């Protein structure tokens, strides 16, 4: 079961007000050059089918409710990846009054993929890390606490 969880991460991509940069890089990660399907990654159309929620963008006021709803719709065990600097810190849009970010105010975030935008290889690495977390987490409610990791951090 752990192996299956690690080897089959299905994503649901959600744009919470991003500038498109990260979203296009997610799509590029599926393209022939990077081909995330090698890791079993599939982009799913419905959040109910997904394991990992990929959020881009600084979470605008209009998007907050939708982020929470979609997070609740993803069946457990689940993980959340914040792709790009926007969901992590709201980036250059900091102190805009129409933003409700950063993302971790609203849903627990497991993996941060920093960059503006991150490169597709970093995104794939983030997905791989999230899949590891997912495999460890399982259906055990005690493991539901977010495991905060960063792509690109130096392993001790």
């Amino acid at each position, binding site marked *: *079961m752990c192996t299956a*969880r690690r080897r*089959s991460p299905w994503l649901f991509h959600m744009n919470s007000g991003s500038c498109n940069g990260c979203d296009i890089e997610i799509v590029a990660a599926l393209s022939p050059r990077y081909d995330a*399907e090698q890791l079993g990654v599939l982009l*799913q*159309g419905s959040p109910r089918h997904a394991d990992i929620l990929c959020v881009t963008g600084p979470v605008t006021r209009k998007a907050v409710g939708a982020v929470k709803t979609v997070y609740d719709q993803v*069946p*457990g065990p689940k993980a959340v990846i914040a792709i790009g600097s926007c969901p992590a810190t709201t980036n250059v849009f900091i102190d805009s009054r129409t933003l409700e970010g950063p993302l971790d105010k609203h849903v627990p975030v497991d993996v941060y993929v920093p960059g503006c935008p991150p490169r597709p290889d970093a995104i794939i690495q983030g997905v791989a890390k999230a899949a590891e977390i997912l495999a460890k987490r399982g*259906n055990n409610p005690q493991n539901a606490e977010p495991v905060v990791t960063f792509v690109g951090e130096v392993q001790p």
Partner: protein
Amino acid sequence: MTLITALARLLIFPGLVFAMPAAWFFLWVERKSVALMQERVGPPFMQPFFDFVKLLGKETPPRTGIGGMLMRAWPLIAVSAAAGAVGLLPVLPSSGGFQGDLILLLALLELPSVCIIAAGFSSRSIFAEIGSAREAALSVSYNIVFLLAIVSIAASQHTFRLEALAALPATPLLWLGVAAILVCLPAKLHINPFSLPNAEQEIYAGPMTEYAGAELAMWELAHGLEWVAGVGLVATLVAPHVHAVWIAACIFIAISFAVVLLLSVLAAATARLAIDSSVRFYWQCTLIFAVLAISSAILMRFWS
């Protein structure tokens, strides 16, 4: 045919024990070959298996009431119907069967798509309903060609027994029927260019939108088994009649593999058609095949 052989057929070969790995294998072949055509590496060999196991371990949304029970039931019915259809296939020579098992096979083959339609409507999501409506329209149009093809083959032989049909020597009529079945398979299996009931760009995941976890895993399995059954039907009709069991099994697998590849190439090379184009396509097909099949069936009866 004894009970034991019947059970063995249903459960072992070509039934569940064989069909489940075969289903995963075919799903993998389809994904991998499409990926290779797109100059990608594609998923690893065990991928559909991992997907299935992972989905089994996921939570399913709580459902209550009669609607919830129905929603749980549909995927199970679909899986059993598809598995039954696979079990009926006369892969091995002289393995039995009964008069009229062809009709049962057709019914079982049709059941999964009926389940999909029902499941879409019972999930009460607008996208699932549109998906179901499309599936229904599509299934009405392709089934006529599908049934005509099989009935004309059967009528020319005065039998509805599968094994008799499988042992049929290759005649032009048989090839015509096989061609008609091949035309219908993409629609039956929801692959391009007839993937519109689950067109995720328009209606999320179609009838499956509300499904999750183990129920979705059952749908995936039913889909895989449909692959095996549909492709297997073609294989049994085309395969030459041999008495050695192992050779027959090998030929069956080889032909199935070839058909899967053929369908994948088609899926990779086409865009999705809109519903009216698809229906128009199948009605045009119907007309051509109906005239050809019925007339040749009648002719053959007169000659024989």
